[in-house]
C-alpha cells in the first residue's frame, strides 16, 4: 500500500473543511432491515466514518449499527481528488477505484488509506494545539 506524505497546512484545511452542496458525495447506508438509505457526505471525516466496511471484527464492535457502505469506488476516488483536493491520496486510491476484486474488499482497502490520511490530520492538529508555530 502506498505511503502518504505528511499533509501540508493547506491540505489539512481542505481535509477538515466542508464542501458545498454541489460537491457532496452521494452514498448509501445499506442495512438488511432498512435497505439502502441515501445520504450526502460533506466532510472527509464523514467519509472515513461512513466507510466502516464490516468484517467479522467490525460486526462485533459495531453491532446492530453495522451496515454495508453503498458507494461507488470510482466516485469516491474522484471526490477525494476533485472536491477535497487531495491528489496524492486520490492517486493512492486509484488502483482500487475500478473493476477488480469484490467491491466490499476494494472499499476495505480504500478505507485503510483514508484512515491513514485522517490519522495524519489528527496528529498534525494535535501538534498545532501544543505548538502553534508549526503552522
Amino acid at each position, binding site marked *: 500500500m502506498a505511503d502518504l506524505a505528511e499533509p501540508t497546512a493547506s491540505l489539512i484545511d481542505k481535509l477538515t473543511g466542508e464542501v458545498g452542496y454541489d460537491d457532496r458525495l452521494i452514498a448509501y447506508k445499506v442495512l*438488511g432491515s*432498512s435497505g*439502502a438509505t441515501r445520504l450526502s457526505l460533506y466532510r472527509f471525516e464523514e467519509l472515513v466514518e461512513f466507510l466502516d466496511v464490516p468484517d*467479522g471484527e467490525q460486526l*462485533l464492535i*459495531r453491532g*446492530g*449499527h*453495522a451496515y*454495508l457502505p453503498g458507494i461507488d469506488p470510482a466516485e469516491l476516488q474522484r471526490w477525494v481528488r476533485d472536491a477535497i483536493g487531495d491528489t496524492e491520496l486520490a492517486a493512492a486510491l486509484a488502483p482500487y477505484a475500478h473493476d477488480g476484486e469484490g467491491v466490499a474488499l476494494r472499499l476495505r482497502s480504500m478505507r485503510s488509506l483514508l484512515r491513514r490520511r485522517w490519522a495524519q490530520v489528527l496528529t498534525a492538529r494535535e501538534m498545532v494545539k501544543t505548538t502553534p508555530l508549526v503552522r
Partner: protein
Amino acid sequence: MYGYTGKILRVDLTTGTTSSLDTAKYEQYGGGHGIGSAIFWELCKDKTVTAYDPRNVITVMTSPLSGTLTPSASSRTEVQGIGSQSYPIEWFTRSNFGGRFAAMLKYAGWDGIVIEGKAKDPVWLDIRDGEIKLREAASLWGLLTNETQEEIWRYVGRGSDVTDWVRASNARDSGQTTQRPAVVCIGPAGENLSRIGALVHDGGNSAGQGGFGGVFGSKNLKAISVIGTGSVTIADPKALMSARLWVQDNYRYDVNDPKWEPSLENQALLTMLAQGPGYGTITATVEPSRPHGCLGCPVSCRRRTQSGHSNESMCVEMAYYAAESPRQTLRATDLLQHYGVNAFDMLTNGYLRDLYKKGVLGPGKAIDSSLSFEKFGTYEFAEQLVRAVASRKDIGAALAEGFLRAAKTWGRLDEDLATGALPYPQWGYHEHYDPRSEIEWSYGSILGERDINEHDINWAAYWMPTIAVAYKLKPTISAEELARVMGEKLVPYNDPMMVNYSKDGIYSDAKVKMVAWHRHYSRFWKEGALYCDWAYPSFVNPEGPDNRGYTPDAEPKFWNAVTGQNLTFADGIELGRKVWNLDRSIWALQGRTRDMEVFSEYVYKVPTPDVFAVAGMLPMYENGKWEYGWTAGRVLDRDRFEDWKTRYYKFEGWDPSTGRPTRKALDGVGLGFVADELQRNNKLGTE
C-alpha cells in the same frame, strides 16, 4: 378452535364501556390480520372516515400461536385501522410489533382488543385477566414511553419494585405472576397527533409505520396495559413440542455437530443475514450485552445492554442516524423509542441537511429553522430534531405530518419525487429496497397500502448473492439451485420462473404469480398466524437439509398442533387470498382506483444507482440459463408495468379497468356480503 381464548375485548372510549366479541364468529378469517379486517369491516360503518375521526375502529390482534412455544410466532401483535401516515389517502392499514404483548393478552384471556370512539380526556386501559378498567391518564400525558411504562408498572404492582410478584386481581383465586404488565403506549409524538407517531412496547418494540401513534393520540388513549396469569390451551401439546424439536434438530446451528463451519467473518455475515441464533450478540454493541428475543423466540435477534441504551432495538431505528460515537448513536436510537417517533420516516433526515446545504432551509431561509444544522452528526442535533418533531416545534410542525407531506408544505414535493431526492415510491412511505430491482417488494407495496416490509424473498434472492459477490464468496447456492428450491417451496404454483428478476422476468406472468403468492402468504401466514417476518418463510438455510429452509412444512405443522385443524400450506394461501380481497374491498370503498396505483416519477425515470448493494445481485433466467445478475441502471417501464397490472388484476379476478374485486372473485372466497356492499356503493368491479 384451540389456541384462541374465545373472546375479544371491545372498548368504547366515548362511553367508557367495555364488552366482548366471540372469537368463534371470526375464525373463518384465520388469525390476527384476517380477524382484524373482518371486525373493522363490521364495526367501522363508514370506511371513508379519516384516521383521527372517532368513528375509526382500531383492532389489536393476536393469533392462535401467540403465547405458545411456536418458534418466532409467539408474540407478534397486529394493529389495524385507518392509519394517518399514508398519502394521498389515509388507507385502512396495518402495523405490527413484537415483544410479549400478544402472549400476555392471551394469558389474560383475550384474543384481541377493539378500540372505538374517543375518550373525553386522556385515559389508559388497564387489563388484569378479566378485570378491565379505563383509568384517567392526566398524570401520564406528556411522559416519554419509557416513563409511561414505568409509571404503569408501579401502579399495577402497587408500588412494589420489579422483583415482587404481581397479583392480577383481588379475587382470592386469582393468579399471581412475577411478570410485569405488557404495556403498549404512545409518547409525545402520538399525543401531538403526529402522522409518524409510533406505538412503543417495552424497550424497543414499535409499530411505527401506519401512524397509529397519532391515532391513539386522537382517541386520547395513552396506553394499554395487560397482565395475565392464564395459559393457552393447545390441541396437541406433544405435536407442538415435537415440531419445535424438529426445527431445532434440522434447521438450527448445532454447536456440537455443525454442518457448516465458515470463518468468523463469513459466519458473522451470514448470521447477520440469516438471523441465526444469538444474532443479537453476534452483532453485539459497543458494550457488554446479552441476547434478547420476543417471548418464545429462539432467534434472539435483539440484545440488552449494560447501559440500557438501545435495549431491544434492532431494526431501522439503529440506522437512522450516525452520531459522533457508537455510544451516542445508541442514545440517538433511544430518542425515537422514548418520544415514540416512526424510525423509518426519520431515515429521511439527510434530506433536511441537503436542503440546509442548498441554502433552502435555515434561519431566515425559505424553510425557516433555528435547528443547529452545523451540528448535524452529533447527538445534540438528533435530540433537537426528534424533540422538534414530537412537539411540533420549528420544522417539526411540518415534519410531524411526515417528510412527504412536509415537502408538499414546502412546495418541493413534485420536484423531489421526480429526482428521487425524496425516495418515496408509493403511498407516502420511504423507499425500502430499490423499487426498480426488487420488484416483488415494490409491486406488492403499490398494490397494497404501505411499504410491505417483508424480507423473506429478499434474504434468499437478494442478500445472499449480493453479499457473496461483494466479498468474493461462493454463494450459498447457485442461481439455478435457488430457482429450483424456490420452485419447490412456492406452493401451490411451484414455478421456478417466479424468481426470475431479468429485465423481461419482472413483467412476466410468472411474476404475477410471485406477487400474488407473496400477498396471500403474508396476509395469512405472516400477518394472520403472525409468524415473524425475520424467520418465515424460510427458503434457504445452510444448516438445513440440502440447504433448504423449513417452508412450506413448518407453517402448517405448528398451526395444526396448536389449533387442532388440518390446514395445508395451500389452504393458508387461500385464506390469505380471502383476506387480501377483503382488504382490497375496503380500499375500494375508500376510493381506490387503478390509476392511483402508480409509482412516483423517479421510479420510471431515474436509473437504479450503479452502487453495490443498492443495486443488487438477483437470480435471472437469460439465454437459457440461470445466473445472478446485476440490476444497476434499471428504470421501470411504465407501459410494461401497466400491462403487468392488467394481468395481475385478471389473475386475482379483479376488474382490470378499475382494479376492484368482482362479485365472482369475492363469492369465490366466501365474501359475497362484501360484494353486496361494494355494489351498493357502486364500487364493485365489472366482470
